């Protein structure tokens, strides 16, 4: 089953209930949004899905793998890649090297052929390099190949992190605020990229606070508030949902003393 299934996932940190009985389904080949006020548990959920945290209870399934049993590197190996809200690039590597480092699960890079300088090793390295270059071109960083990643602008770093995640050849991409801090034009470029990835069959789950970005891009949206799912539905349904409006704007009709 290619759907991402999240079932009754809860997670607490000590006495703080970060997630409570979270359930939703991400259909394959769609862009699914995850929104909610700050502290709603969105990033915690992404961390649990990607294996960096384990849930206190509940289960998650993707392509017949029980995600809640897998460590982060195993999650990556079954085709789930992610980016980070606070951008975790490799600062002392060039853009190209960052993307090449992301090819860990899609490459062999065996030691023995390299020790003997076999042509197969050279061929693989050339092939991987070309694929990394193509990935950089796809996110529009082909003119910054040899730049150290720490010298990039904020938006460029976000795009580089997406390129690195894409070099895992993922079927499911988890993006934690992919356009945070980007200008509108730059965000539109990312939106176009995500749409084209989706057309190629990739499933995308993304957290974003930029509402016009989320509403125009996602076919379905899950709204979290205080660790619980308020609703899951199409952008129009979510916009009309009374509880969502209350979560974002506060309850109406209550006198503010």
């Amino acid at each position, binding site marked *: 089953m290619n759907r991402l299934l999240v079932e009754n996932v809860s997670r607490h940190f000590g006495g703080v209930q970060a997630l409570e009985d979270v359930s939703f389904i991400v259909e394959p080949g769609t862009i699914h949004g995850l929104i909610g006020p700050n502290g709603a548990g969105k990033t915690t959920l992404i961390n649990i899905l990607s294996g960096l945290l384990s849930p206190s209870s509940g289960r998650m399934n993707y392509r017949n793998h029980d995600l809640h049993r897998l460590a982060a590197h195993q999650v990556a190996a079954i085709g789930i890649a992610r980016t980070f809200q606070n951008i975790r690039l490799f600062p002392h590597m060039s853009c190209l090297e960052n993307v090449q480092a992301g090819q860990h*699960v899609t490459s062999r890079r*065996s030691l023995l052929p390299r020790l003997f300088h076999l042509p197969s090793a050279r061929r693989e390295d050339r092939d991987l390099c070309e694929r990394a270059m193509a990935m950089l071109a796809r996110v529009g960083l082909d003119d910054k190949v040899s730049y150290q990643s720490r010298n990039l602008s904020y938006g460029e770093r976000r795009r580089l992190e997406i390129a690195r995640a894409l070099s895992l050849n993922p079927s499911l991409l988890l993006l934690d605020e992919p356009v945070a801090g980007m200008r509108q034009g730059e965000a539109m470029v990312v939106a176009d990229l995500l749409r084209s990835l989706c057309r190629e069959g990739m499933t995308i789950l993304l957290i974003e606070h930029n509402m016009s970005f989320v509403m125009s891009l996602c076919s379905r949206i899950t709204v979290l508030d205080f660790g619980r799912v308020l609703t899951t539905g199409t952008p129009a349904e979510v916009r009309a949902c009374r509880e969502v409006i209350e979560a974002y704007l506060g309850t109406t009709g209550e006198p503010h003393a």
Partner: protein
Amino acid sequence: MEHLLQFYAIYGSVINFIGINALLALSLNVTLSAGMLSLGNAAFAAVGGYTAGILSLRFGFPYVASLAGGTCAAGLVGLVIGLPVLRLKGVFLAMATLAFGEVVRLAAVNLDVTGGAEGLTGIPNVTTTWMIYLVLAAAAYFIAMLRRSRLGWGLVSMREDETAASSLGIPVTYYKAVAFVIGAMLAGLAGGMYAHLNYLITPRDYGFFIAVDLLIYNIVGGTNIWYGPILGAALLTALPEVLRGAGVTAGPIRMGINGLILLLVILFLPNGLASLFARRRSSAVKAGA
């Protein structure tokens, strides 16, 4: 030619020590390149040295078999120590590995089989200069190629950011253990060669100061490329002799001079002496592009 022979007759032992120290520095470089601050490599050299020495002396093993035995023993100890210790990070890992070094030293002092405080004497003197440099070249080549392998990419990624590395599919814990064992084996090999170079190995040979020296070689030379630790080891091992040649008796102030060099490198060449070469090369690449 005659001058060369004369030079070798006088400085042969320094040349040998540069080779051994460079090999030890390289062994530490494997773990450093993954961002692990381990100070246990001197102790692994002691394990390898004592094992190889005992195999030669007490069991009559041929040289190569003794070296192989020492290398494997160090690797095995590395695995046993590594599994619990590698959960620690940064300075805590350094402290734990340092403590392990003391355990090894105390064991060597107190055991009968290691010859106690006087050490193991009468080990056949069969290591020669060309052997040391052949092994050094092979180790340097191995490490250079390792860096291009999947493991090498993983190790460097882990140094940069462990969390991000694990999300890229890199099995961080497993790779740490592998790097630790490879480093331990290289150190064990160096220790075995050292034991067969000097007739003897004593508990003092691979104590605290050597453990720290290995780290200094790496920092001074640079950890990012295979020839960095070799440069650092060569410079700092040869320096006292060079100073003596210049009429300065470096003995008592050797540590001070090492410290000064370390300070200067950290302040002005944070990527070590090797970055002098690497910088020239990268600017050539940019000019060509």
